[in-house]
């Protein structure tokens, strides 16, 4: 999926950045075998090395990129990664590898076509540095960028502060009281459930295709044997039908794969996207809380200062300086929060647009696949009717 992103009305020549993820290869001489992919970048972005460059990356590199973007671009819905799936990983089936490759390709290209994310330094690092440097960069990351850990810590802190507030009887408005936003949050949470259910059934449908394929193959074989027993015209009829059955079995197998890659996977991607948004929602809550906490602290400090001024303490200067700092921090926190809010509003529109496109395509592929399959089945059987009549 190669997308071209045009930088809107400026005198610059149109900039583009497109990536393709190809050639998955199993690397076995490491501690644990893994899959490496070729990433080929075609671009005319000024900071990039040349028109075209290819590097090799592995899944954990993609995870690194995601974590960096998530930490730095709060408010933006970072495109979702395919899941870790550590069980499947060990099997490395061809289908799994293909599914992952496709998902990673989509991931990178979505970043490359996002008007803000595409300018990220981390993206450039990811797309351009050699393998060893990448590994070094990746392992340098500690603490703050380890998303999972920070999430956990945040959750603890949240619980802590809530409990403290209750105990201290503080009426802290730790959450936004924005009804629109509440609706959005509820929408996102419910959406995940609905889409997940649809995806579950889509996956089952793939399985059903495979099962039917197998049954047709077995049925065809058995009918052919019966035909051999009968001989004569009836025997011919049986073997014709058996042969057709086996042919259709193969077609069903193909359709199962097509369904998986072009319908089930996009649905899975949809689920992941919604989950990614939930991450952003958490970040927004954090920013809001920080803002509030700072506002509280500033208020308290102002009261302190007033008191100090009353008593003409020598600490006044110190306190005033502190207050200045806090006010600056407060402004910064407010700015950050408001930035997230603004970005989120934009992102939601973009998300909805994109999902309509994505799902529209997925539906189209689904319907097309089913129509082709049904037509093939109809043709196959129809072609037998004159033969049967002639016997």
């Amino acid at each position, binding site marked *: 999926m190669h997308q071209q992103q045009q930088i809107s009305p400026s005198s610059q020549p149109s900039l583009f950045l497109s990536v393709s993820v190809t050639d998955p290869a199993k690397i076995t001489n490491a501690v644990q075998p893994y899959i490496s992919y070729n990433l080929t970048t075609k671009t005319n972005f000024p900071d990039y090395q040349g028109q075209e460059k290819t590097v090799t990356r592995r899944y954990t590199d993609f995870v690194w990129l995601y974590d960096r973007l998530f930490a730095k671009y709060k408010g933006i819905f970072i495109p979702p990664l395919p899941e870790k799936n550590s069980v499947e990983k060990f099997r490395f089936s061809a289908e799994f590898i293909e599914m992952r490759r496709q998902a990673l390709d989509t991931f990178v290209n979505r970043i490359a076509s996002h008007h803000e994310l595409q300018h990220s330094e981390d993206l450039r690092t990811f797309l351009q540095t050699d393998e060893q440097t990448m590994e070094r960069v990746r392992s340098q990351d500690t603490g703050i960028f380890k998303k999972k850990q920070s999430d956990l810590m945040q959750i603890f802190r949240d619980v802590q502060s809530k409990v403290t507030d209750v105990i201290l009887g503080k009426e802290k408005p730790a959450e936004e009281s924005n009804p629109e936003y509440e609706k959005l949050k509820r929408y996102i949470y419910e959406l995940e459930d609905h889409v997940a259910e*649809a995806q579950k059934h889509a996956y089952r449908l793939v399985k059903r295709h495979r099962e039917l394929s197998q049954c047709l193959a077995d049925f065809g074989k058995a009918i052919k044997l019966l035909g051999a027993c009968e001989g004569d015209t009836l025997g011919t009829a049986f073997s014709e039908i058996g042969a057709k059955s086996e042919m259709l079995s193969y077609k069903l197998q193909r359709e199962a794969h097509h369904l998986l890659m072009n319908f089930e996977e996009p649905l899975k991607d949809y689920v992941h996207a919604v989950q990614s948004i939930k991450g952003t929602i958490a970040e927004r809550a954090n920013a809001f809380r920080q803002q509030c906490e700072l506002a509280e602290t500033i208020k308290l400090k102002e009261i302190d200062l007033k008191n100090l001024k009353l008593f003409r303490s020598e600490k006044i200067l110190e306190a005033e300086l502190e207050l200045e700092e806090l006010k600056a921090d407060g402004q910064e926190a407010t700015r950050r929060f408001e930035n997230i809010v603004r970005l989120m509003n934009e992102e939601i529109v973009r998300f909805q647009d994109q999902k309509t496109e994505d799902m529209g395509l997925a539906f189209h592929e689904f319907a097309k696949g089913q129509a082709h399959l049904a037509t093939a089945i109809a043709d196959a059987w129809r072609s037998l*009717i004159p033969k049967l009549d002639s016997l």
Partner: protein
Amino acid sequence: MMGFENQGSDEAQLYASREELESLVLDDDDDNNNSGNGNGSGSNPLFRSNGGANGDDSQYHHHPLSPSFAEISTTEDDDPLLSSPSGYKNPTSFNSFLEPPSYADAVFRSFDGDRGKQINGDGVVSSSSPSSSSDYLKISVTDPQKEQDLNNSLVPGGNSFVTYLITTWTNLPEFNGTEFSVRRRFKDVVTLSDRLSESYRGYFIPLRPDKSVVESQVMQKQEFVEQRRIGLEKYLRKLAAHPVIRRSEELRAFLQVQGKLPLLKTTDVASRMIDGAVKLPKQLFGESVVSAAVDPDEVVQPAKGGRDLLRMFKELRQSVTNDWGGTKPPVVEEDKEFLEKRKKLQDFEQELTNVSQQAESLVKAQQDMGETLGQLGLAFVKLTKFESEEAKFNSQKVRAADMKNVATSAVKASRLYRELNAQTVRHLDKLHEYLGVMLTVNNAYSDRSNALLTVQTLLSELSNLSFRIEKLEAAASKVFGGDRSRVKKIEELKETMRVTDEAKNRAVREYERIKENNKMELERLDKERHDDFFSMLKGFVVNQAGYAEKMATVWATVANETSGYAKSS
């Protein structure tokens, strides 16, 4: 793009269509409830399709997936489409472009009708034979009633049984009348079946329903009675379809004679056993009483049960001789053609069993596919409703509209699969039926083997007697002046031999007769099988093609409507 223009009406339409979907579902439900209450109360008995036969091929039908047409359609506990509550709604415009289920039926019914067969489940093996195309003999079994056996009740009020109303419509001359009914109980059916197997040895006689004592304890009384009723009906219809048996006196008596069934339970009466035992000691000591030696008429029947213990012993010994002896039996089954045919039939039976199993798997896979499609459709319906309820953006509305298309198509496809399956079951059920027929063939071949064994036994006996006579004559001639006791003995043996010879002749004639019956029946079977299977295959193929085409249309519409997305990727 869809949905951009009139958003307001779009929303209204989205809501309406969801209700339409539900009413669509309910329509389905209603139709199913009307169209095939096979296992419910005994509704219209003539509308019974070729579902899994209960009696004759019961051993093949404990698989849950070989139910009747009705069961396929109605048993979906986990089908979400059928879980919607509330009242039946009138078909809306939505339903008008989804043809009601019976349309498909009609298409295929007309095809099958051309073939001159009755679709509605006579359980018929044969298509109408050319010579008697205007004859008819239609039977229905209805109205089970509980009755008391007043005669034999040792325990007052203890011995109750169920009777069924057997109604016949016919224009066959041997019946006096065109429509009449009798009441019969299951025991009568057993009697009929036994007499037929005795009178029509060598024929492929349809198997009667099981006695199934165990099931009668386990199942609910009502269910059991219903199952039995269906089984009886199928059985009688099969008898009526057999070109020779339908003209039998036994069947006529069963169908027409009021009151007690005028057939002997069997020629093999329990009291005979006692007779046999009385005769036994005398025969064992070699003193055969002339009249009790071998009743020539009896050889026409196989040695059974208590009827003739001695005969049984002899035939057993003979069969052992045949198997182990090295001596070639006097009459060899030398009909090579017969042996070849039998081997072929055995192979056929084996492959048929295999196909029948695969057919069941196929049906199950089709059913699962339909179910999952339905569930997928339903999930999208919910998603559609969700997205359109609080749609803030146009893109959501557009997506909801797209989704609705997919959802309704998935539901339609799901329904098509269910119909396809119901038809497939109907066609492929022929396979099951023929498995049952193979059993009847095996029985007919057993008749033949038994008859042959009887002949061989008698031939052995004859040669045995002849040998003894020779010995006696040789010994007697050495005695000067005559040996009165020996001469008397020789006379007796000669008489026995004469009777035995007569019996042997009859046995041979019986054997030949059975052979002839076998041959005739085999030809009939071949022809019918050929016709039946051809029609089954064609039905299957037409069915698959028809439904696939319908599905293709459904999906092509959606593909067209979403083709805009394809270009933009």
